[in-house]
């Protein structure tokens, strides 16, 4: 069940129940022929997998030291804990979803993911479908060749997935799944927008967990769950009065399902996270896929949306990340930014000083770097850092 041990709120109750049933539902469906395709990074269009009649599962599990340590059977202790964890879960098998996989899709994002891919191909019998990915996030569209390349790679992925599914993936099926995913994205976006106001019926934490539930639940059912949540919220009173709490934005390396140590510490310290720039959070629902015209090629539409979302730091174009962060800080009236870098995550860590200076100089917002891994050993120091940060921003009046 998603959550850190705190009692489920009303909003999440139905969803959590549904989520707890998911692994057994998937097992049943597999017996009837359903294939489960795992993927790690949000550069893989789920739409293709759904259009092929298969179930996409985003394998973004983290926060546990056991699989991260098992991953050292392959990787070194100074490789990314998330990457070690992905391999560790597959190796030790104590994850409800890893053992349901029929294949995985891997986009060539960062080196750590590349390591996961190579060991996966060599050690696990589950097939790997790779997707080539340009690393220049080309904000000014001065490199049209990157988009061309990505489109053709998506066509190749479509072909390979179709072959695996046993039938070619039709354009009209892709359009249908685009429509489904767009609806999901719209509803999730609304959830993330609520905390812009100080009085909000839903906390960011819950929107975050809901998003993550959407990595695992059959997408049609997930849309139904979102509708239920929407109805719940329509009649709801304010849950959190954010007036006196310090408003925070969290950005950084992947926060996997289960990696809630930092989030919980912030909450305990009295901080209120209202926005994020996480690839497992609001970025998944940012931007719809837009097909231009009735005869528009859905692959082109997918390429546009997936390549030109806010880029992961494995891509260049630092400026887009800086701008986007400043935009969100402004829109959500954020007082401070928490920059969570997983230990040994070079792509995120290397940009911290640049982000900190930018936020400080341009919009006078402080940021706090927290480097951590999946070990609970540093809880004390992190708590002190967060509390000191909140004291620094808000003063000590309470």
């Amino acid at each position, binding site marked *: 069940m998603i959550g850190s041990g705190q009692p489920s709120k009303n909003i999440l109750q139905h969803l959590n129940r549904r989520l707890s049933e998911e692994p057994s539902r998937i097992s049943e469906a597999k017996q009837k022929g359903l294939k489960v395709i795992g993927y790690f990074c949000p550069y893989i269009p789920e739409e293709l997998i759904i259009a092929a009649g298969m179930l996409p599962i985003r394998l973004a599990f983290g926060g546990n030291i056991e699989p991260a340590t098992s991953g050292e059977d392959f990787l070194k202790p100074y490789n990314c804990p998330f990457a070690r964890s992905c391999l560790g879960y597959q190796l030790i098998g104590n994850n409800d979803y890893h053992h349901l996989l029929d294949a995985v899709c891997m986009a060539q994002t960062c080196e750590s993911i590349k390591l996961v891919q190579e060991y996966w191909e060599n050690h696990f019998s589950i097939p790997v479908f790779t997707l080539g990915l340009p690393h220049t996030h080309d904000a000014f569209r001065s490199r049209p060749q990157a988009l061309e390349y990505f489109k053709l790679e998506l066509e190749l992925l479509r072909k390979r997935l179709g072959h695996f599914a046993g039938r070619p993936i039709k354009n009209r099926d892709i359009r249908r799944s685009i429509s489904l995913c767009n609806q999901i994205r719209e509803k999730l976006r609304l959830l993330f927008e609520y905390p812009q106001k100080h009085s909000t019926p839903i906390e960011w934490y819950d929107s975050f967990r809901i998003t993550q539930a959407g990595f695992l639940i059959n997408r049609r059912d997930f849309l139904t769950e979102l509708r239920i949540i929407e109805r719940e919220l329509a009649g709801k009173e304010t849950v959190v009065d954010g007036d006196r709490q310090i408003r925070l934005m969290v950005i950084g390396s992947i926060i996997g399902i289960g990696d809630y140590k930092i989030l919980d510490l912030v909450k305990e310290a009295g901080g209120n996270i209202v926005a994020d720039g996480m690839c497992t959070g609001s970025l998944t629902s940012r931007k719809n896929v837009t097909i231009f015209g009735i005869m528009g090629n859905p692959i082109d539409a997918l390429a546009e949306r997936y390549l030109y979302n806010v880029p992961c730091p494995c891509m260049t174009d630092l400026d887009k990340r800086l701008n986007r962060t400043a935009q969100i800080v402004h829109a959500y009236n954020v007082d401070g930014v928490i920059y969570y870098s997983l230990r040994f995550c070079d792509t995120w860590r290397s940009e911290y000083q640049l982000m900190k200076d930018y936020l400080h100089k341009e919009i006078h917002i402080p940021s706090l770097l927290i480097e951590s891994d999946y070990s609970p050993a540093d809880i004390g*120091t992190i708590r002190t850092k967060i509390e000191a940060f909140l*004291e*620094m921003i808000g003063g*000590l*009046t309470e």
Partner: protein
Amino acid sequence: MDTLTAGVDIGSTTAKALILNKHGQMWTAIIPSGPKPPLAGKQVFQLTLEKGQHLLADIKFIIATGYGRVSADFANKTVTEIACHGCGAYFISPTTRTIIDIGGQDAKAISLNEQGKVIDFIINDKCASGTGRFLESAAQLVLNVPLEELGGLSAKATDKATISSTCTVFAQTEMISLLASGVSTENLVAGLHSSIASRVASMVKRIGIRPSVMMTGGVAKNAGVVAALKQELNVDITVPSTLDPQFVGALGAALFAQDMIEKGSGS
């Protein structure tokens, strides 16, 4: 009736308490934290009460800080040692803009603005070689001298031994072989101080050195480390003289407690 407040700084190595009245009079006590820091917090607070012959009821507000603050159930509120060191250092010397606190198990650098508010901070908790523990283990395991004597020893050094290892464990091995090869204890201690100073200096540079700079915490009592740091950072460093530097955090906590009362948050 005098308004008394208390600050209890429960560190991982030592627990300190300070009782403060409105005229700036202070009573202090310090004990080792031992294996049960929360207990040490209570004990040192009790000791301080006894020293000033105060009653618990006289203390209007207690703030706990430090590593063990979370479990100090006798306190009215907790505040981090960052804010407390900032407050305490600024009270002692209002020109303080940078604070370097080397404690038993971590090291901190704190940046203040003109009003004495914290504007930036760094905590180094990953590496033992920039903390008091490095000195302690060297004193105990390698040199076999009391910790308090290190400062005096380095003052007599004729040269500075170079300890190149950045890791505590390897550094100890290196120190042992240096001693065996004939390096004098004084010179070795000078090298040790230089080593810890360069770790800490690196941290301070990241936050920016703004004068005046004050050192707090137990290691500030080691004149050798202070001198080495002055050299590394090329800036003057003051050490509180009116109060044992180990109590700066507790002082800050007691001062915050006064603020709390004035703002009406007393319990």
